[in-house]
């Protein structure tokens, strides 16, 4: 089962338009809802007050409608674990989960994610205990320079947590490769990422028994 990437328009397309499509999945929790008669919501051009649930915490931020979720996370909220690499939806380094689905956060406007539940690399560790996939990345040496690593881990997490039925089989080699097919690595960690994913799957299967 492959992960489901949310397709959104490139922010360049939207830049300056001040209008964004009203997405059912991303109803803004706060802010001035200036709905027009056509039902299309007006944004901007000034800053919008947005609110997210990030790694279990409510976070508010005020950004212009053209700011991507990635830049809001990194430059405004200060969560820099999510990496900015291609800023064009090609490399997966900025992968986060929005409402349980992996998204290239450089391809989603922050306004479109408002009201959403967001999970980032910083949220995988729980009470000082690493997620099994994080442990496996360490033991399998799946991070060299480490710049692709947060995105890789988020894609693997999506596969391990939601891509497979809880009692079902461990992921096949093909499923793992497909899960990180959108994540580029320049140091060449891929075989280690595959091994880490297999190892984490085994650990998660054991602990779910």
């Amino acid at each position, binding site marked *: 089962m492959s992960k489901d990437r949310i397709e959104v328009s490139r922010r360049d397309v939207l830049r300056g338009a001040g209008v964004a499509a009203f997405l059912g999945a991303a109803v803004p929790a706060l802010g001035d809802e200036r709905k027009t008669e056509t039902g299309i919501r007006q944004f901007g051009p000034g800053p919008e007050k947005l609110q997210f649930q990030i790694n279990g915490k409510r976070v508010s931020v005020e950004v212009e409608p053209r700011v991507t979720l990635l830049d809001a996370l990194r430059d405004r909220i200060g969560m820099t674990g999510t990496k900015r690499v*291609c800023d*064009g939806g090609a490399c997966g380094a900025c992968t986060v989960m929005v409402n349980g689905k992996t998204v290239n956060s450089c391809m989603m406007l922050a306004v479109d994610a408002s009201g959403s539940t967001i999970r980032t690399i910083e949220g995988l560790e729980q009470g000082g205990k690493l997620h099994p996939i994080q442990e496996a990345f360490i033991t399998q040496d799946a991070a060299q320079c480490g710049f692709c690593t947060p995105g890789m881990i988020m894609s693997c997490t999506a596969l391990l947590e939601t891509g497979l039925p809880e009692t079902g089989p461990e992921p096949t080699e093909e499923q793992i490769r497909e899960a990180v097919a959108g994540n580029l690595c320049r140091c060449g960690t891929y075989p280690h990422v595959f091994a880490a994913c297999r190892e984490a799957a085994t650990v998660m299967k054991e602990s779910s028994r």
Partner: protein
Amino acid sequence: MSDKEIQLGFPGNVRKIENPYPADAPPAWGADAKLDVVGKDHTRLDARAKVTGAAKYSYDRRFPGMLYSRMLRSPHAAARIKSIDLNGIDKLPGVIHHEPYEGKRIRYAGESVVAIAAETEEILDDALARIKVDYEVLPHAVTIDDAMIPTAPSVAKGDNERPGRPRGNAEKVAAAHKDADVVLEREYRTQVQTHSCLETHGCVCVFKDGKLTAYASTQGTFAFRGSLARALKMNQSDVTVITDHMGGGFGSKFGADAWDVYAARVAVKTGRPCRSMLDRRAEHMIAGNRPDSIQKCRFSAKKDGTLMGAEVLSWGTAGTSARGGGVYNPAIYGFKATLQDSRDVMTNAGRARAFRAPRHPQGVFALEGMIDELAEAIGMDPLEFRIKNDPHVVRQAQYPIGAKEIGWARRDKLNDPKATVRRGIGVAASRWPHTGRPGSAVRCRIGKDGSVVVANGAQDIGTGTRTVFAILAAEALGLKPEQITVQLGNTNDPPGPGSGGSTTTPSITPPTRKAVEMAKRELLGAVADVLGGDPKKMDLEDGKLVGASKPLTFQQACGLMQGDVIETLGRGDRDLFKGGARFASEVAGVQFAEVEVDTETGGVRVVKVVGVHDCGRVVNTMTTRSQINGGIIQGLSYALFENRVLDRGTGDMLNADFVNYKIAGSIDMPEIVSIPFSVAQGITPSGVSSLGEPATVPTAGAVANAVAHAIGVRIRSLPITPDKVLAALGKIA
């Protein structure tokens, strides 16, 4: 404390030499050394920081009041900036600083035209969009073929094609060819490859109380500091460079670049921190690349399999630089005579920079192709032909290991001649000099509380340098690597090497061991002062003090020291890098590749790659395998996918992104078998040598040879894309 003799070599081939190192050198590690920590699997010290997102890269640095900077870049490959209309951006709220480069002569697309610093990235977007530039557009030549046309516009003063410096002996080569049974003349070509570091080039600069701190994405903290200080006319002692983590360099990130210097200038002028990180497009266009090559080869051999002469006349473009376009060909094998002439061709394109084994992958691709072509011409198995002509004692031992692992014996029976999807196996070799260098120093501090800190100012480019320091210290102190605190990537600490030429681990190992051994001697001396006994009979093993009158833990032993801390400085002195005791003059490697080629689609899939690589003594087997895997994957990517495409008409780069500039991804991964082949080289007391670069050298050659074996036609140009395969098979024009 050193032994009198060192055993060099590897199992099955050892010899002893007299220990050439000074009496105060760390104990020599020969082939028979028994080590507890070195040479085993160790996870990285910084792995937890990397998997939790806590690791701070330069791109992640944020400071109150930080400005963002970027440059407007020329869309033209050759132009003069006539005038710049700032169009009121200086009055735009949030634009804090700007610097127009009026009158500048543009020599490649992507050169800076105006630099701006602003409060946010969005304000930068607005400001850059408003600027109007009047260019006098000049004729350009962006490809090597265009630039060599006699009437092509001059990129810089003089001819675009620069004369080479021929090496070798023309008469001897001619004589060798004459004595040969087969003489082949072929032309090979390689493409321009961009480094494609995931973290783009750049830094964040902070200026406070007359001191400048640059958080830089660099593989040479000290080189970066020196060049930044020079550019700002500051004392280097007033500049600190910090690189805790960096997202890839591969040879492209040493000194401070124009955009770094701009950020520093803004920080100094405004007193506010300033960030300057390239965007992906600029990264592809202006931050370095591997030059392309055209290699005209004339090689000869006798029917009995004796290699005779090799001549290579080559051209390569390093963009607007007149240096760096050479190739490593002919090389490796025992030719009777060689002649080489490499010519640089200047083009209106971004400059080349050192790229993981400069000159080697492109040279070895052509060299290994020629070797296979000769073998075929004389009817000899290509592996047998290599073994007959390879003078290197280590590679001679590596060939059978790799051949067995890839299944070379089944090579002749691999294909059903009627099959649509065909398989092939190929082999290629690499060599690299021992590159450890003197001049580094390492500080070791053992605290009364048992804490151990090892400090050096060099960076960890991603190879696991941080962990190497800890392993070496743990070995000497009888501790575990995770008990050592490693402080690196800060130029206020003792000097360390730039991570170039595969020098880092071989250069830092001798001074690290020296510092820790000195600290250990001081500690044991302090213990003897209190407990009595001979400190020379005491040792530290498994977290304990042994050979003393009382059984103590390491921590208890530390508690006996007089002062609060024992501090030593180990220098990587010249006499630790004598080099006279080498087992072999260089490190050797061989790679084997198996591929599958679909003759209907032209698609090539690499099925398996085996890499057998010597890097002297292996410090960490886990990260060593990662390095070999990484080298192979980058080599595979170079062989099949990567290619910088410049528009001959406009001079702009057409694929300056990660959609159209393709690097290998998860789907493209073959099975990889990485075999570290440890050889006691005797080059330093520790015998640690180079690996990062040699591991990527042979891959493209091995893959190309496998493709030729699979389809029976040779593709002499990289990357090996489906269109080239189909053309070679005569299926498309």
